[in-house]
């Protein structure tokens, strides 16, 4: 179905950027740093293709009302790389599952998968509860509801760095639990 969208329109070495799009100019100016970012995230020789995907995505939006277009484009590049990593992981998991559970209808989560998901959520609930209710609520407000850390700090009347400390505690506890070992140490930058 992708064939409906031309994969690459070659104009010399450049593919075409619709010049009338409101974000075209910013995109062209941002192109070098976007490429550098995609490469730093491990895109290697696919960086150019991914950059084109990014433009096609951008061009399919109206481009109106974007507050910080540079940051917006970097966010898109980040999302593209994360989508790619997610697809790779899903493929590896699927190959793995296939051997264990070949009969499963691919679209439907199996009862077993549901059970595992519930068990996982119970464990995460318990783990967060053990960190204290304040950390638990701040983490959910940030991670589930996507409220900005600055806004959480304002709501609670505490400093931004206090919110960051609560979140670091929760992030490290989850990572340590997933890796099945002790604490994650170190003063990371904030």
């Amino acid at each position, binding site marked *: 179905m992708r064939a409906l969208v031309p994969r690459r329109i070659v104009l010399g070495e450049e593919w075409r950027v619709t010049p009338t799009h409101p974000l075209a100019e910013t995109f062209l100016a941002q192109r070098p740093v976007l490429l550098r*970012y995609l490469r730093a995230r491990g895109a290697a020789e696919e960086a150019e293709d991914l950059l084109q995907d990014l433009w096609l995505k951008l061009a399919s939006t109206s481009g109106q009302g974007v507050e910080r277009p540079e940051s917006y484009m970097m966010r898109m590049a980040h999302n593209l790389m994360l989508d790619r990593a997610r697809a790779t992981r899903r493929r590896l998991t699927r190959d793995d599952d296939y051997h264990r559970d070949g009969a499963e209808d691919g679209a439907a989560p199996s009862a077993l998968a549901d059970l595992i998901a519930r068990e996982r959520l119970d464990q995460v609930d318990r783990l967060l509860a053990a960190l204290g209710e304040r950390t638990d609520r701040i983490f959910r407000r940030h991670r589930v509801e996507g409220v900005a850390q600055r806004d959480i700090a304002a709501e609670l009347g505490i400093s931004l760095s206090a919110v960051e400390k609560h979140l670091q505690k929760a992030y490290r506890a989850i990572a340590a639990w997933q890796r099945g070992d002790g604490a994650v140490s170190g003063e*990371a930058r904030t």
Partner: protein
Amino acid sequence: MTGAASHRLAEALDWARRLHDPDFADWDGHLAWLEADPANAALFDAVSLDLEAATAGLAPEPAPEPLPEAANDNPPAGVGRRWWLGSALAAALVGVIGIAGWTFRAEAPSSPLTIATALGQTRAVRLADGTQVAMNGGTTLHVDRATRAVSFGEGEAYFDVVHDPARPFRLQIGAASVEDIGTAFNVRRHDKMIEVAVRTGVVSFDPDGGTEPDDDAVILKAGQAIRIVDDRGAVRRVDRASVGGWRTGQLSYGDVALSEVANDLSRAIGQPVRLAPGDGMRRFSGTFKVDADAATSVRRFAAISGMRATRDGAGWRLTPEG
């Protein structure tokens, strides 16, 4: 884990935390960190996906039952609740909207918790009783904080219910209600149309919500769907595997109005899909796939429904082919 490895992991987690913030803007700093060590990118991807996996479907509020306490710095539950209530009130006043595209308001303990998704966005939510809800775009649910009763505003959602014979799961849909007998089912509501389709188990559907003494409840088994339009209902057979298929981008229809499909498509891609009123009456049967690429998704549907898709402002217009 060595000290250095543990420190690198802490850094990667911190970048994941910072990038999750809707206001994040320090891309130069992030780029510098990535370029400082070629191994950082893979570590960053790994922790980002691990966090996603750990928190998918996590409830917006801590688990209601008191859990065994492993730490002694927990405030008593009452204190914590009051603490949060004040802040939730502040949040409601400024109209906090999450980056994930759904809103959460808690004006008072008696008011229902409203969970809503924007068009084009989906959300997995776990209710207090363990019921998993997959919400399609443009959907609103209300959860009563005290009774945990759930009522369906509009849109589409798939419910996977943990059956508890002592406390059956009940869903209010306008005047009608659905009660599970251990099941997974899908609900769609738009204007005057309500549709409940059962994937596994059995539900009892009551068009008047059990308020009338007459026993007019309908038992729906797996592979059956009821559709109510203007108080007139009909039960039909559906392909079980296609129930809730929207969760994987699969939309299936058997002889429905084109306007209804256009409405679902708008919800899925987050852009309006318009039809001339006369064309909306056309019938459609078939299955097609929608994904993140709105233009391709619309053209896919146009191709199998004999329509032509053209851009129309921020959305699309479908006109008969030829």
